[in-house]
């Protein structure tokens, strides 16, 4: 996903003019293109879709998926739900924080972000996580270190 300036996203918004029910679809499309939904676009989105700015802002901030700032180059999303807990996801989380020096759901820098999520549907193969949207199951600390290193190499060369 290549970062884009807000202006290049205007034609995308134009395609949904007058279709307020398409707000989630539009936000997903903007985020797929730009990596996030620039907050300066809220007024344009609202006016094109016949919505109030509060409604657009409300949707943008209600859902966990939408971001209003560029994501880190590598994003790790670890499942913290019950099935993964039963197979040691909390110990894995502690390892990940120690290994990376970052905190889960804390402030993000440009290189790495750690996020907690709740269920990837891999509950019989716990613990599971995503690294840049790629799914891994039965993750051990050693396996994590290897796949993170690979993701960071790919991130650096991209």
């Amino acid at each position: 996903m290549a970062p884009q300036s807000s202006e290049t996203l205007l034609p995308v918004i134009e395609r949904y003019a007058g279709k307020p029910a398409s707000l989630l679809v539009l936000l997903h499309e903007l985020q797929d293109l730009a990596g996030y939904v620039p907050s300066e676009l809220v007024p344009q989105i609202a006016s094109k879709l016949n919505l109030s700015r509060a409604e657009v802002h409300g949707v943008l901030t209600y859902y966990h998926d939408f971001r209003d700032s560029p994501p880190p180059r590598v994003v790790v999303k670890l499942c913290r739900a019950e099935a993964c807990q039963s197979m040691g996801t909390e110990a894995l989380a502690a390892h990940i924080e120690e290994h990376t020096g970052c905190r889960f759901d804390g402030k993000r820098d440009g290189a790495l972000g750690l996020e907690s999520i709740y269920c990837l549907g891999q509950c019989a193969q716990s613990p599971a996580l995503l690294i840049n949207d790629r799914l891994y199951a039965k993750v051990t600390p050693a396996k994590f270190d290897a796949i993170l290193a690979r993701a960071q190499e790919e991130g650096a060369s991209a």
Partner: protein
Amino acid sequence: MTRLYIPRDSSALALGADEIAAAVAAEAQRRGESVEIVRNGSRGLLWLEPLVEVETAQGRVGYGNVEPERVAELFDAGWLAGGEHASRIGVVDEHPYLKRQQRLTFARIGITDPLSTEDYLAHGGLAGLRRALALDGAAACELLIDSGLRGRGGAAFPAGIKWRTVLQAQAAQKYVVCNADEGDSGTFADRLSMESDPFGLIEGMTIAGVVTGATEGYIYVRSEYPHAIATLNEAIERARAAGWLGKDVLGSGRAFELTVAKGAGAYVCGEETALLESLEGKRGIVRAKPPIPALAGLFGQPTVINNVVTLASVPIIFAQGAAFYRDYGMGRSRGTLPIQLAGNIKQGGLIELAFGVTLRELLHDYGGGAASGRPIKAVQVGGPLGTYLPESQWDIPLDYEAYAAVGAVVGHGGLVVHDDTANLADLARYAMHFCVKESCGKCTPCRIGSVRGVEVIEKIQRGEQRAQQVKLLRELCDTMLSGSLCAMGGMTPYPVMSALEHFPEDFGLPGQHAAAA
């Protein structure tokens, strides 16, 4: 030419199935062996994934937990002829985990190529839809009522009665909505259905459309399931090209269109009215009922809303008849339940069985005990809002009424197993914490009650005024249970109270039920 099956669903992909497929193709070429690789779905024997099957004269022979680095070794062992190897599990159909199951809804998963329309037809596909097209709406609803099918998403409302309400409603436009926002930890049956047999869901939804007069359908899939979304989109395109969907379904003159909608990471959107709000492009906030969605659902129009497994169970009911399905099960729980065995368990996976099986059978005969090898302490049944069952309750048959009688829920049939290292007070606090994170915020008991719930449980754990705080926790749970608008706040007390009741020692309380642990 030897045919190999390498799954393409996300449980196999998460463990390297794509790398294995590439390694198999490369190794076969290097050795001059002619192979055809079919990317099937998962059989649901998830502890064996990636499970590669080789078609032989005896049947499809399976090799479990295949790793890309060991592919050459498997060729050396003569696997193309079903040769011996440490990872060989024998003919997959004969595997005891699979052979003892009663697969109706999941009859095709792992066997077919999920995206092959020919494969679907060759395995009984569309027989249900053809039957439904030949019936009038009222008779079709009666058939579904007779089958005893109840919603498999959790609330267990009779599907046929819901459909009949939509059929009888007068409106210019009606909808079918599939709730594929499977956000409960320990549940993956919807995902397996969508990724491994998407045409089954498409057929079920089309039947719902032609029976009730709805011409548009939406599948609302959580964004955490990108593989399911991609598979469904591709399957819908192929179904449309084959004339199964569109303006003239199977040449009947009836129209049905299907669209996939992607969620955006909100657990509460699995609640049907919040899901409808989200599908309308709004914040996924719960609506007060009535009106019920069957009368005023999507965009205020009559709407059939069922989850994936419910809709995917419909084709076989129409194909085989109501009695065929009703003959499975017990009491008022008819047919089969797709049980998802997960968490700390040796042999986790999908088990489809008639209602009535017990947890003890599932945990031991199928699951083989805890993955850690330690004693099992508690099983949470029915997702994060379900109760924790101690060993004293493992002989209760899985049946909606039998579970309700002890204050438990069958829910979606997801089981999460915890061994004796689990602390139930921590899990109870987590249940409240999850409600804090995921409450839609519309009603006070859920929004505020969950925040207070975390605080109170922490005080109990720290031993601050313990007796008083336990009393407060009970009152708080009672308020959430009776005062919340939907199951999010209304059922969060279930895991909390069951943990407190059955595992008091984990809260630092005298263990009067210690024997139960």
